[in-house]
């Protein structure tokens, strides 16, 4: 992997991204020499094809922390498309819970909603990364964010068969929603772990900022899932209203659902599910 030409001297990432880093026996090792061997290991393989990038994301995601400008230009669009496709596929699967015929709506909502959430949280990620003392440029930080969301999306696809089985069996929308959120949370925690380890490898002393950012992204995503409701699809027999999906009597399809905090919405949905179960 080539080194970013604009990287200033003293950048922790400098030299580590080169395939064969020059070794000068007379030169003193850097102050944080403990992370140097790790960084050299990270730079061994340079993915060239799409499949290799995917493999790198799962096996050695560190390469995404040391992307040069050329790699950024290649990886960010590739992974953006990958994210849109995989999240779209997972969204379509979510839509099959109520009505497979209208599953394209949740597909669009999930893909675009996750992208929007990531964009909303990107400025804070960049500032918090600066606070850790790492000299990562905006493009590099964007590359890391895209790869982290890409890893989440890939893991979601991995979980898709499990989600599908549950989608076929579960009756209540609240419980199905909880399963999807659980799957998403596990996938995202893996992505957060990847970011945490990567920042550590680059020499960040404290990764508390990244954990705080992760918490913000989780809260924003949960709120986004409430904003974009219904995500589990609209029942065919009640297509004229979103009553069953949103759980609000008398609300027409063309009317925007009432604005709610996600915890309030979940509580409402749980109540609806429990009442429906009691009626059965």
């Amino acid at each position, binding site marked *: 992997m080539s080194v970013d030409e604009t990287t200033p001297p003293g950048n922790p990432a400098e030299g580590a991204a080169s395939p064969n880093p020059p070794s000068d026996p007379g030169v003193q090792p850097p102050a944080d020499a403990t992370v140097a061997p790790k960084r050299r290991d990270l730079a061994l393989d340079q993915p060239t094809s799409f499949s290799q990038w995917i493999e790198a994301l799962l096996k050695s995601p560190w390469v995404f922390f040391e992307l040069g400008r050329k790699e950024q230009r290649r990886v960010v669009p590739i992974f953006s498309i990958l994210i849109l496709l995989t999240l779209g596929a997972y969204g379509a699967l979510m839509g099959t819970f109520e009505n497979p015929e209208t599953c394209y709506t949740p597909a669009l909502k999930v893909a675009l909603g996750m992208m929007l959430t990531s964009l909303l949280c990107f400025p804070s990620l960049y500032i918090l990364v600066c606070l850790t003392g790492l000299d990562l440029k905006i493009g590099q930080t964007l590359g890391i964010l895209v790869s982290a969301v890409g890893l989440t999306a890939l893991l979601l696809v991995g979980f898709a068969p499990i989600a599908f089985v549950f989608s076929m069996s579960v009756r209540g929308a609240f419980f199905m929603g909880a399963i999807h959120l659980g799957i998403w949370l596990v996938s995202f925690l893996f992505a957060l772990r990847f970011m945490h380890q990567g920042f550590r490898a680059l020499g960040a002393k404290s990764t508390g900022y990244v954990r*705080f950012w992760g918490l913000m992204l989780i809260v924003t995503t949960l709120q986004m899932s409430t904003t974009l409701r219904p995500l589990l699809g609209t029942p065919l027999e009640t297509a004229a209203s979103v009553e069953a999906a949103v759980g609000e009597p008398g609300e027409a399809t063309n009317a925007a659902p009432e604005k709610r905090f996600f915890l309030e919405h979940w509580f409402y949905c749980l109540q609806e599910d429990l009442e429906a179960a009691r009626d059965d």
Partner: protein
Amino acid sequence: MTKNPPRAAGAVSSDPELCYAKHFATSELPPARGVHGAALQLLATRRALASPGIPALLLWIAVGAGSYGAMIGCWRSPLQALYVGIKFPLLIVLTTAGNAALNGMLSRLLGTGLSFRQTVTAILHSFAITAVVLGSLAPLELYFVCELATPESPHAAQAHRAALVFNTVLIGIAGLLGLRHGLQALRRHLPSQALARRVFAGWLAGNIVLGSQLAWNLRPFFGTPSAEVAFLREHPFDGSFFESFFRSAWRLITA
């Protein structure tokens, strides 16, 4: 008389004045290239020796706190967004200016050897970090404000309370990040940890007291749904934050 040998950047000096002077001396700054360089110069703790000057810090405060303030105010109305966008940075600058003399004297009294200018720069640096973190949260704030019930809706009072809680948490976290940076800088550049803590506690206490009262005087920020949009309330100097807090607490206890 022999001169002190030159020290490596980041080395802790036994002479606090010399060391802190280096910390804030503009002649020591590496060039800040573009927004990224300027942001790194402000935020990276390891580059604490490269603190930007007072005008740059004021600019960061204006941009960061101004953008976040505008997002807070936009829930009530665009005019309120403009007002809060001005008032939020103003609150920070007034707090720093109001406490500048006291903090400078306190630093001298506690034996840090910091000059008036160095004290102001150190405090402004902490505030600038808070402001930049808040600025980076502005898109999120806008999203959450859009998710609240409008001021005209029957649930406006509930939305107003939710906005208060949400923003208090976000501003509190951003404030802690700024304070953490300030304490780290003092610890790194003062000879004793205890001295750094004492100076920091003194600055913090002064800023909390004056900042709370100024925030009370500069109300409204969130904009009570039933009240009219205004830059300041009708009698901005009527009452105080602590008086109101004490009365509320007393009512809670005696109720």
